[in-house]
């Protein structure tokens, strides 16, 4: 079992939105970032993986188990973190354990209390008394207590302060350190992924733009900058996205075309640059 998550030709049609033909694979032992602007289909993809939405076509396998035919086996090895917690507000942390642990045969009570201690969560507190960052950690503590092999996080960092975001990244790199765990991490705050992600899957307007190694992804693009007079119509046609301003322009280009822009300043692109420039195509730039 080397691929912890396989998504093949996954499609889903709603009224007014279509997720079309998404394919990617997450091998065991790595972190994959699922990126794209809001409304591009990240959450839809995750809900399809979790069988919370019904797919129109395609296939999803979690640790080799079909997510519908073998839903229970698939979910036994799965931990999920959403942008807000999914426990009852009124529950104490000890009640969270009581309610959730029953469903996992390999639940490790000692591990749970150790993790709580590590995360500085008091078991006597109620869920509603926890901060957003703490609630996220509580969801993680649960997933760690049944040793979830695959962790799926849907926008976990939106609404978190920089300290909690940094902590999360640290927790995740510890989690995959033994090479036996994988993480699928959806976010529009791509700075979080810039360093820690091994793979990137970029969904744009419901379609797959790229899926593969992060370094490879970043290597595909460059940012070029220059004065306005250096931008010819021919060149601008080949650019993936341009931002014009009064004293010059910035554009995202393919690295393979770089020699055509030899007269311009070129620098590496960040994930943010790539998403921003490629998501605006077709719109007027002013």
């Amino acid at each position: 079992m080397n691929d912890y998550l396989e998504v093949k030709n996954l499609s889903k049609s709603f009224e007014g939105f279509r997720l079309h033909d998404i394919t990617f694979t997450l091998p065991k032992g790595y972190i994959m970032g699922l990126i794209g602007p809001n409304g591009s289909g990240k959450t839809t993809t995750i809900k399809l993986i979790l069988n919370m939405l019904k797919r129109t076509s395609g296939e999803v396998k979690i640790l080799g188990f079909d997510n519908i035919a073998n839903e229970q086996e698939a979910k036994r090895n799965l931990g999920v973190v959403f942008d807000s917690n999914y426990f009852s507000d009124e529950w104490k942390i000890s009640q969270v354990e009581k309610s959730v642990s029953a469903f996992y045969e390999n639940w490790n009570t000692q591990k749970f209390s150790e993790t709580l201690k590590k995360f500085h969560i008091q078991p006597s507190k109620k869920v509603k008394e926890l901060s957003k960052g703490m609630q996220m950690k509580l969801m993680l503590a649960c997933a760690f207590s049944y040793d979830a092999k695959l962790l799926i996080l849907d926008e976990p960092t939106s609404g978190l302060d920089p300290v909690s975001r940094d902590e999360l990244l640290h927790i995740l790199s510890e989690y995959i350190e033994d090479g036996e765990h994988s993480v699928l991490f959806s976010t529009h705050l791509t700075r979080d992924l810039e360093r820690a992600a091994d793979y990137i899957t970029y969904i744009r307007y419901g379609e797959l733009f790229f899926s593969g190694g992060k370094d490879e992804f970043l290597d595909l693009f460059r940012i070029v900058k220059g004065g306005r007079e250096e931008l010819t119509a021919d060149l601008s046609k080949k650019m993936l996205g341009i931002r014009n301003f009064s004293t010059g322009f910035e554009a995202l280009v393919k690295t393979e075309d770089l020699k055509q822009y030899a007269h311009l300043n070129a620098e590496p692109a960040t994930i943010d640059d790539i998403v921003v420039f490629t998501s605006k195509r077709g719109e007027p730039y002013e």
Partner: protein
Amino acid sequence: MNDIWRAAKLDFSLVKPYVKSICFTMVLPVVFAAVNRSLLTGISFAMCFIAMTTGYTFSVTEKNSMERLYGILPIRKSDMVIGRYIFIMIMGITALIFSLAVHPVILTILGESISAFDHISAAVIGIFLFALYTVFQLPGYYKLGSIKGRVFMYIPVAGFLITLLFLTKVPVGESRLLFTVIHSPVLLMLSTVILVIAMYAVSIRVSIQILKNKEV
């Protein structure tokens, strides 16, 4: 079976913070029984009240967007639904047992004599009414949720009012079959049990189908 039981326990943990207020709703039927001097009315009222609280699990789930928790737990959707039905039935049976224990005591103090047959017929009717209310309520909650499906909370009230009319107006004597059944405790219990099981079987199937087709 294990998963069903776990689901029922999870439902209990949802309602646990509200147990006091649910228990409180069982006080009023006692008064009602005393005023009407009738065990049957008291029990009918109690079952109506407890059935009005079956939306709690749905409300708590909805308030905390817990469909996401249910979505990630390794449990079949059908077991989840059956677990909820079991939990609701336990709630009903608990209310029934409480009322059957308390109401007769009050009525006896007030000078009424309550026969064993009164007990049995009240129990049978109580079970039947509770089943009748909940088999419609639960699929309704599953379909619409507890906020949009608020109207289903009032099914028991409507049912209760109809029962009051029914109890006084139906000319039992005219139907021989009904007469025989009502006056034979064994037949009465047997036919109720069969009817209740059949009703729940259909209702559970409908609820499972609704949940399976639901997208969250």
